[in-house]
């Protein structure tokens, strides 16, 4: 048995051309979000141009893995066979104040039946799947 938040067997993420730095960053305990070199604007998910100023001078900048819960959901019904025995789990939508308030999706660590306070501060925890081929990492969140 692993100590991953969700049971193994879900489709595992692989980098696409656009987001390779992001996935590599997670491997190194770093959160990298796309930023525009021309106007300084942030965006997530990554795109080929900046939606603020339409420049294509985009790069990935490291930001602290700190955020605020914008919304959440507690999932009960498994829609994937890998989660058949999972039981409840919590998905959170987290605003990143250090990256222009873009939002990222993750799981909220701790009791899956805990009360989830919208607006609460959360800190990131990297979850490394070294046994996967190729290995990958996810970013979860815990109430600060």
């Amino acid at each position, binding site marked *: 048995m692993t100590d991953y938040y*969700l049971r193994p067997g*879900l*489709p*595992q*993420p*692989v*980098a*696409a051309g*656009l*987001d390779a730095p992001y996935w590599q960053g997670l491997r190194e305990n770093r959160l990298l979000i796309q930023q525009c070199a021309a106007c300084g604007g942030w*965006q*997530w*998910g990554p795109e080929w141009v900046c*939606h603020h100023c339409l420049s294509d001078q985009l790069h990935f900048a490291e930001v602290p893995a700190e955020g605020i819960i*914008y*919304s*959440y*959901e*507690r*999932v*009960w*019904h498994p*829609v*994937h*066979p890998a*989660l058949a025995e*999972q039981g409840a*789990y919590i*998905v959170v*939508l987290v605003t990143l104040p250090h990256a222009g308030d*873009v*939002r*990222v*999706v*993750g*799981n909220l660590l701790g009791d899956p039946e805990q009360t989830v306070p*919208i607006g609460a501060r959360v800190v990131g925890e990297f979850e490394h799947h070294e046994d996967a081929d190729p290995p*990958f990492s*996810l970013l979860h969140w815990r109430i600060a």
Partner: protein
Amino acid sequence: MRGQVAVVGVGETEYYKRGEAPDAEFKLALKAILAACEDAGIDAKDIDGFASYSNDRSDPSRLAAALGCKELRFSNMQWGGGGGGGSGAIANAAAAIHAGLAETVVVFRALAQGQFGRFGQGPQRNTIAGEMAYTVPYGLMSPAQMFAMKVVRFMHDHGVEHSALRAISLACYEHAQRNPRAVMYGRPLDEAKYDASRWIVEPFRLYDCCQENDGAAAMILVSAERAGASPHKPCYVLGAVAGSHYRAGASVHNTPDYASSTFKTLAPRLYAMAGVTAKDVDVLQSYENFTGGVMMSLVEHGFCAPEQVNDFFVKERFLAPQGDLPLNTSGGNLAECYMHGLGLNIEAVRQIRGQSSSQVADADVSMVISGPMVTPVSSCILGSEATL
């Protein structure tokens, strides 16, 4: 475009539970189209345009060939997933007729989820890349899971109680008990049964979620000039709009206006085009992928303010014929059939014709809201001749 085009025929196959249709999806589409032609009193060979949505697999060129249509003049797909394109396909068909691109356009949708894949399941493959890679590994992959977080935030912002969602479901099921075509006919729902039902994903219980069904539905549209010759009361397109707000499609749940059914920019355009207001609507069909989407759709179409939801959303208000806003009078996607919402547009026609199993007296202004929370979404208002 107000009043320039009319729905003159509607047709449906029998509605089946997911995977139980005896026919191939393409045959279902043909059957619904032929039924709509018969209803309209027209020859299928005279259809010269097709409009659908959500990447329907029944290609218009093949349909036109199969039906022996004399000429294909309009072959139209409303981009975007989910049922957000139902009324958008009607808008496209009406625009094509009004502009003279085609004369007889069929709006259709066919689904055989046994023959093809299911909506309500996650991806069944080993790896995932791009936008879905940011959500699926965290167990966020089904439509219910994609939309629940919008509704959670809306309920949080406005203090909405769960009873508001329940009222929608109860009204749909009560109407379905009067509709023999409904898949949930003979399977009533009450508060206790709803409250005891399992969570799918909070805030949605089982009865907050649409069915998954097989079947097909079709509607024939012609110009108002030709509509007078049809055997049934024509249902005029007073308004039909599609679209979404600024960056509604921003990935990974990054749309700026998040807790929304996506209708805030559409509703004013719809009412302006139709020349009516929310107060004029006699009967409403509002697409239930999930009840929370209906709640936000009604708010964004001006039926009540966000702070009024708890008081406004009571079952009695939504019941035909006596309620002041009869809602989903066929049973809707929850309890009649999930024909990707086109069944709602057909029910809107039935109300104007006086043919609903939960008929509203003197229904002249009949409105449909299609596919909340996706992008693009759409809505339309049909009217009787008295509204012209």
